[in-house]
């Protein structure tokens, strides 16, 4: 049987229609102007080097008295959690009465080349926690880690448990040697010392391209052909462009922190093996007893679910909960489905433990 139910004329028409959309799209893109991201009103409450700690303005009369500090990854930019109106995890949390703070790591420069994980965890994160704790006159606050920020939050909690009330990890890798972890597979045999010694800070563009190369045909090809179909819709195009801006807005990574993270986490799988060493302290996840909510994405191509689910077996928390989101690594923050599921779940979980 002929598998092609298509005539020559149909092809010409289809190409013509595609061309029309492309031409129209050109006008749409020309008229878009600046792509604005980050919708929720916020105030910078603490600066240190390139870091800025933001406090978001509340959107409800009543709030959870224990603030939540969001620790973002060192790669890409944190406005992904507050991308646009109606597609913002932070906005959702604010609407649920959560008092939200966010660490923006900024853009590390050559002066930051020697920053280590100790500086990030025992320095920057700890300082931010102290600022918030003292401001609210609390001994403990809530932490929410995003991706690599989740791994940093786990280290922080293991080392400073007395300052953490509840811990939420989202799409956080814990076991870096699971079968489906392609990123880990790619970097397992790399000579990281040589890369850092030769490059200094690690270019954000290279990191970004590496992430895209995990699904190259889809993420660098098909996506743009799909875009043609929505180019006649300015709003949808703007949504696409916001994501595009975020994807290619990639800060460089401090060389030493990169060296430590890849070697100890990806190559040695130290988080589950208990061999990660921050300054002089071993990160022992089994010491963690605080309540944990572990959220992972079912279709995550960057952090496989198994890599996140491994957390349950590593910590000693009796109050351990997990939540599977039916979507991908980024969709968990920006999709419409996520807005209905993630912020209310987080807020409710926190409220029960306040």
């Amino acid at each position, binding site marked *: 049987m002929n598998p092609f139910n298509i005539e020559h004329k149909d092809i010409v028409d289809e190409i013509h229609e595609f061309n029309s959309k492309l031409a129209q799209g050109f006008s749409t893109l020309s008229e878009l102007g600046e792509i604005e991201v980050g919708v929720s009103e916020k105030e910078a409450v603490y600066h240190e080097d390139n870091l800025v700690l933001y406090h978001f303005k509340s959107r409800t009369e009543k709030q959870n008295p224990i603030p939540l500090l969001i620790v973002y990854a060192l790669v890409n930019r944190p406005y992904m959690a507050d991308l646009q109106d109606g597609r913002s995890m932070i906005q959702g949390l604010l609407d649920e009465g959560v008092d939200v703070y966010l660490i923006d790591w900024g853009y590390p420069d050559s002066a930051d080349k020697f920053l280590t994980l100790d500086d990030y965890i025992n*320095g920057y994160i700890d*300082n931010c926690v102290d600022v918030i704790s003292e401001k609210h006159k609390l001994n403990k606050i809530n932490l929410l880690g995003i991706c690599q920020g989740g791994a940093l939050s786990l280290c922080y909690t293991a080392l400073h448990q007395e300052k953490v009330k509840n811990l939420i990890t989202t799409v956080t890798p814990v076991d870096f040697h699971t079968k489906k972890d392609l990123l880990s597979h790619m970097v397992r045999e790399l000579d990281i010392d040589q890369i850092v010694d030769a*490059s200094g800070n690690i270019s954000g563009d290279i990191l970004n391209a590496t992430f895209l190369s995990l699904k190259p045909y889809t993420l660098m090809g098909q996506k743009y052909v799909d875009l043609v179909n929505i180019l006649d819709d300015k709003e949808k195009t703007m949504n696409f462009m916001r994501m595009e801006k975020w994807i290619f807005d990639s800060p460089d990574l401090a060389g030493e922190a990169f060296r430590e993270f890849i070697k100890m986490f990806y190559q040695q799988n130290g988080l589950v093996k208990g061999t990660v060493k921050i300054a002089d302290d071993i990160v022992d996840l089994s010491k963690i007893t605080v309540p944990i909510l572990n959220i992972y994405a079912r279709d995550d191509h960057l952090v496989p679910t198994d890599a996140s689910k491994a957390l349950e077996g590593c910590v000693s928390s009796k109050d351990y909960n997990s939540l599977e989101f039916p979507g991908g690594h980024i969709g968990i923050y920006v999709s419409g489905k996520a807005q209905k599921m993630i912020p209310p779940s987080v807020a409710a979980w926190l409220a029960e433990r306040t």
Partner: protein
Amino acid sequence: MSNKDKIPFDGLDWSDFQKKYIDALNAFNSPKPTVNSGWVNAMNDWWQFNKPETPNENMNMFENVLEQSRNFYYVSEQFTNLVDGINKLKNNNQGITDFINSKFKDIDPSVFGGNNSFNWNTLADNFEQPIELLKKTFTDSSVFSNTMFNESNPGMGKIAEQLFSAAGLGANRETQDKHKLAIKLWAKYQDNYQEDLAVKARLNKDALELMRTRILEMSAKGEDISSMRQVYDLWIDSNEKIYGEYVFTEEYSELNSRLVNSMMAFKKQSNEITEDALVSMNMPTTSSVNELARRHYELRKQVKAMQQEISNLKKELLLKNNKPVAAKNDSKSSIIKRKSKTKTNKRVAPKSSNVVQIKQDKKKLTNNVKAIKKKTKQKTKKTATDKGMIEIKF
């Protein structure tokens, strides 16, 4: 929109122009035009004409869209011939299968960059970005920039062999050795790069074979493809599947590591040569800048540690300043109590005890600072008051 803001080719409906062109050909009973009669070229011409007049921050994005649209056109063109051929066979199932097999064989040579108008590697090349970026990283800053080392050189091995065989001589022997090592490392990287390209070409071929199999399966199941977009998606899916399976193999992990490691080894060596050249010109080198950055980093940590100590001392002093009030209250009550017991030494004893207390407090304070120092190891900590909006920026 003002005239100034209007895009310069606002009135040009390029797609309509194309349609009219084909309609005109049809009207003259010319041979039936096909989509591979220059869609890509027409689009390129249109873009080249309009691009210089288009200052817009989103134009890089549009170029991405155009690049991928070209691939869509390429796939469409290639399969238009296939579809036309099959349509002529009506429902001759065996004939259809044979025709698909035959046409896919025609496509195969292009996987290896043959002379066909469509080169399947066009898309694959775009996916070499990590490697391209890494290459860029060192070629831009390397002393080998704009030399034969920038491009894949088939005679590289031979050149390298000749250079390696020559012994370093004279005062520049050390420099010669460094250059020889760099060339050796470059040749090694080139070998790995060529191997990587060959593997990618093989994957493209495998993806095409998977696509053929899938089309035949669809044919057998009675499923159909009703648009070129479906064909394109099938092509993307097939490539993604083959690529996705390969990158999980040990072979890929080993090859990828070999490729990146050899590139970085060359980069490191070229950095060293660049440094020598800069030193000879009394210019700043990467090492010297790194050393400054390291000292700066250490100083920054020391400053933060000192700020923390000052902050802690301030706290202690605040407590201390508040203490006399408390002590006064305490002494009042103690005086009241003492009054009932004895009237002598009522002022001396408390005073001397206060001195002792101050001494003890000082000692305690020193110990506290020591303890904090030991505990935090230069860790930066500030009080909320200090942390409020202090900016420590270098």
